[in-house]
């Protein structure tokens, strides 16, 4: 009898648990579901119930240059910042895992610092820095493309360092030593042994770095020049005035692109293992 009661109790517990988990997942997804729904409304005002459905808002995106321009700027900055972030971050991660030296802890923390500093503080600090550099060296810095990219590299580096460090610590050093004993020089060892072993970490670092850069809002607000803004800023400024199916359609395109990128990445690296 007591045993049966315990079984019932455990089963009830399981139901309660699954219910609570579903609720939390629904909560996370709820705003996205409504944005996707809104993108297909026929009328322009987001009132319920919708008067009908239409696909015209997706065509309307292309009529608004600012969305297309914002997307292309965000994409360019993201790709460039991720490439440079990888070039700087992968060697740094190698060094942090493979060598033991006095300043290792503090330097590792320095490279991870950009995630902890609020976006608005990053933006303001870089802004005043650019003002100082511009005044001091008499060159154009403020609001330039390269100033924007340099800021984005800073926020890409922590992701690369963290994820590559994590995958490096799982690599057995003995394989590398074996390669070197067999006559491979350090370069060959890196290309043929180390790099393939840490590829999941690099792919994950690149994905997260790119997405962080692509979606960055707060820091970029201070770094963009007049007339050329990134997609998240275009979306924010649009939403400040009104919400309509056009902006929802823009969001749907973004959700689709990012969802696809994640599914593709998931085939190479199990996302559950890298996050």
């Amino acid at each position: 009898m007591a045993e049966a009661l315990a079984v019932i109790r455990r089963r009830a517990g399981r139901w309660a648990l699954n219910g609570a988990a579903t609720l939390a997942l629904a909560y996370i997804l709820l705003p996205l579901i409504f944005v996707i729904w809104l993108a297909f409304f026929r009328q322009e005002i987001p009132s319920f119930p919708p008067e009908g459905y239409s696909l015209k808002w997706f065509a309307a995106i292309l009529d608004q240059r600012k969305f297309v321009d914002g997307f292309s700027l965000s994409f360019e900055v993201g790709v460039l910042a991720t490439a440079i972030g990888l070039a700087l971050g992968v060697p740094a991660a190698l060094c942090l895992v493979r060598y033991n030296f006095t300043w290792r802890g503090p330097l590792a923390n320095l490279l991870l610092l950009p995630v902890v500093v609020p976006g608005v503080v990053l933006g303001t600090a870089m802004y005043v820095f650019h003002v100082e550099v511009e005044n001091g060296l008499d060159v154009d810095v403020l609001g330039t493309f390269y100033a924007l990219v340099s800021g984005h590299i800073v926020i890409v580096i922590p992701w690369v360092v963290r994820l590559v460090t994590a995958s490096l610590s799982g690599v057995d050093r003995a394989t590398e030593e074996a390669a070197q004993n067999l006559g491979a020089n350090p370069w060959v060892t890196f290309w043929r042994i180390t790099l393939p072993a840490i590829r999941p970490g690099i792919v994950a670092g690149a994905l997260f770095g790119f997405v962080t850069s692509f979606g960055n809002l707060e820091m970029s607000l201070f770094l963009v020049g007049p007339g050329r803004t990134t997609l998240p800023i275009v979306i924010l400024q649009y939403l400040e005035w009104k919400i309509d199916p056009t902006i929802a359609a823009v969001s749907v395109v973004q959700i689709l692109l990012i969802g696809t990128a994640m599914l593709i990445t998931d085939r190479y690296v199990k996302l559950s293992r890298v996050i």
Partner: protein
Amino acid sequence: MTDTALAHGPVAERRRGEGLTATALLAPATIFVALCLLAPLVILFRYSLNEFIPTKKMMVEAVTVANYVKFFTDPYYTAILLTTVRVSVTVTLACLILGFPLAYVVARTQSRFKNLLIILTVLPLFVGNAVRAAGWMTIFGNKGFLNTTLQWLGLIDKPLEIMFTEKAVIIGIIAVNLPFMVLTLQSVIEGIDRAVEEAAFSLGAPPITMFRRVLWPLALPGILAGTILTFILAMNAYATPFLLGGPLFKMMAPLVYNQFTQQSNWPFGGAIAFILMAVTLVLTLAANLLFQRRARSDLGR
């Protein structure tokens, strides 16, 4: 091998070679971050000690703590700080309560949909806070989903005012931060051996007791990490309070932006930025100490 290397011996050469390699690997990233992050922060801090002349909208070089004093003596600004802390604490607690069951299910599931569950949790993180705020605007607006549904059901006569209130902001930030909490907790729970839970059950512990005496203490490091991460993110929130809070609702990050761009008051904006970081750090450390003491007394029992 060269003569100099022979003079110092092969071991010394290898050491020096390693040191050089290590420097060559780490230096570029370090120099870049120092130049593009540390230097700007130092300059911003220096600016926060400058004076500002409101009539001319001009910054004058000085060394004064007047900006910091101004913040803490003006009730307008201390109220904004208090709102930010209150919202962040509420959001963090809600995320912990909502996030734990989902994290547990994701960590323990054997189903092949596990990856899909994780992607669904992570995807919203990547679509930007502004887009998610747009979703909430559709739900909470006067003619939004919630009000239309409630009116249709006859539960209310006139629309509820949720948009542009603290409630909307809290609801919005919870949704933004929940994935971070879930991912942190999930990775820790996955590291806890399932057998420990089974042992508690087979000794007759009901689920609540198992949770309280086994799961919670073992997951405590992850709970602490997730709580701190969620809290920091809530303290720094910008887009959600900006879009869902409206012009009258104020939190710290939008305030920094406002001081910089609308008021052109760089010294005061800089001071607020450092106050925000300092308060976040102090509260985080306090939570850390409290948790650790609690964990120790739990172990003692």
